[in-house]
């Protein structure tokens, strides 16, 4: 039986509410992501992809509609509970890797666990090194983030997204800033993690070739899901 991770029901998102400039960017989105899914999210610029991703990632709140994670409605949760749920359930990979420049690769990977646990220990360090090993970056584990190539940084970001064993990884154009070889490596890496029974993936991409290698393509056009 498929396990449902995320369910969006009639989700809308408006900005400048109550003002003359009020604008609705998402109109009644219904979307379900199950365990093991590897989904591509496509759509033209300004169609609402990033907004949708932020809502699913609990970084933003829908104006109306319902977002449930593992069947639990998130609309009633306070900030602390949302933060905790986000930390435990969702991993993020951003277009520009977004590593913390003051930390090494291993420390960046450890960070989601550290903010949860409070301080480091041997098990956390071992896990970070194992994740870096999985993304083929054992050799640069102690390098500061700015001292790595773009492809390496993005692979560190993927390792970081997997640190808390999330159910879902949200990747916002993870290969958009990489050359085709690095992009292919990063995509394959995500695919491998997913195939091993790890996290589900929702990947925003403009690259149709990559999208077609996903299990499912969801397209957003003018704030609506295209059937």
């Amino acid at each position, binding site marked *: 039986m498929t396990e449902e991770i995320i369910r969006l029901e009639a989700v809308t998102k408006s900005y400048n509410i109550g003002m003359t400039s009020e604008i609705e960017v998402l109109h009644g989105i219904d979307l379900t992501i199950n365990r093991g899914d590897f989904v591509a999210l496509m759509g033209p610029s300004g169609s609402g992809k990033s907004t949708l991703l*932020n809502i699913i*990632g609990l*970084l*933003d709140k829908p104006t109306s509609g319902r977002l449930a994670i593992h069947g639990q409605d998130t609309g009633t949760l306070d*900030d*602390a509970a949302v*933060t*905790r749920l*986000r*930390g*435990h359930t969702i991993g*993020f990979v*951003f277009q520009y890797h*977004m590593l*913390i*420049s*003051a*930390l090494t690769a*291993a*420390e960046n990977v*450890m*960070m*989601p666990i*550290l*903010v*949860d646990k*409070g*301080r*480091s*220990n*041997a098990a956390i*360090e071992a896990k970070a090194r194992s994740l870096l090993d999985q993304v083929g970056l054992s050799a640069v584990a102690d390098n500061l983030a700015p001292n790595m190539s773009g492809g390496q940084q993005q692979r560190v970001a993927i390792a*970081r997204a997997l640190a*808390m064993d999330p159910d879902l990884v949200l990747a916002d154009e993870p290969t958009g800033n990489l050359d085709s070889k690095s992009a292919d490596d990063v995509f394959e890496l995500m695919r491998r993690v997913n195939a091993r029974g790890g996290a589900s993936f929702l990947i925003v991409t403009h690259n149709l070739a990559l999208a077609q290698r996903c299990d499912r393509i969801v397209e957003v056009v003018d704030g609506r899901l295209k059937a």
Partner: protein
Amino acid sequence: MNRIAPIAWIMALRFLKDGRLQTLFILGGIAIGVAVIVFMSAMLAGLEQNFLRRVLTSQAHIQILPPDQVARPLPSAAGVFADQIIQRPSQRIRSVDQWQKVMDAARSMEDVAVVSPNASGSALLTRGEASRSVSMTGVVPETYFLVVRLPDYLVEGQPRLSSEDILIGTDLARDIGAVVGGKVNVTAASGARRTLTITGLLDFGNKGANMRAAFVALRTAQSLIGMVGGITSIDVTVRDIYTAETIARRIAAEHPVQADSWIKTNAQFFSAMRAQIATNTLIRVFVGLSVAFGIAAVLIVSVIQRSKDIGILRAMGARRGQLMQVFLIQGGLLGFAGSLIGAAMGLGALVYWHSLARQADGKELFPLVLDPTLVASAAVMATIVGVLAAAMPAVRAARLDPVVAIRG
């Protein structure tokens, strides 16, 4: 990564290290501010201590005197006075009434350290053709030297005062051409006359005092001023100098005497000290404010520079409280580290200034007071100021919307 320190501390240190130029500049600013405070406070404490030492080793903490004589108007009828003008009577030299009893009572008081009786009056010192009027004080050396450290002022001879001895000021000795071991004639206002041997010369560092000071044994003074068995004042020293006024009041209340504490007789010194303390406090407040604004400015810029990092940390599950801590700790650490550097700079400057600044006679201008509590209090205050200054940037960081922060 350090496994003992909480993540907020690690992040705070890493952020400070990552922006090392900013960190160094603000540390320099804080250090200079704290150095000024430490230098000024330590120097003022030294000057104050010096002043207190001078004042309190050259005079009694409390002086007990006979009360002033007052003229009481004679009423011709109830409520009607016969005379319109009441003249203040001249104050002849009188003995302290029942002085042994007053001395015993004073000596038995808890905080009183030394009690010493004196008999003083004016006299004429003559040697050959030269004569000078002097202020003659008859003392009991064993106790008086504990009140006023006469031996400390002795530049020649011995601090010996038998009934035939006299100690005089250096300028007085030079004026009349006297030397240690020489004889001088002392004539009191009463006409009584004695020939005494100069046993020592005193230098009080003050020409007026050196011109007029003459110390003799109590009995000698008593016979010269015609007050055998009587004394003109009792000098008292107390253990805690700031209790002097309270004790003086108690003595005056319990006995028919006038008791003046050093606090009352040095009122000007106290108002000068109060002004100094007020000025110092004002300087501390303004330096503290400028340090606080400096820290706040640097951290606000840091929050803006690190907004992406803050957004990422929020996305990864960092709580608002944790992010606040990161910036509060940075403020506290900057204040603490800056204060230690500043204290070292301030004390270094103090030691240097102490070695340079000399009085006219070559003695130190102020004693070097290196009080560890001053450094500790500067560190505590600077840390608190740092944390308070970081409050606004910390709140700003915690309130940052992760979506906006990540998007930049």
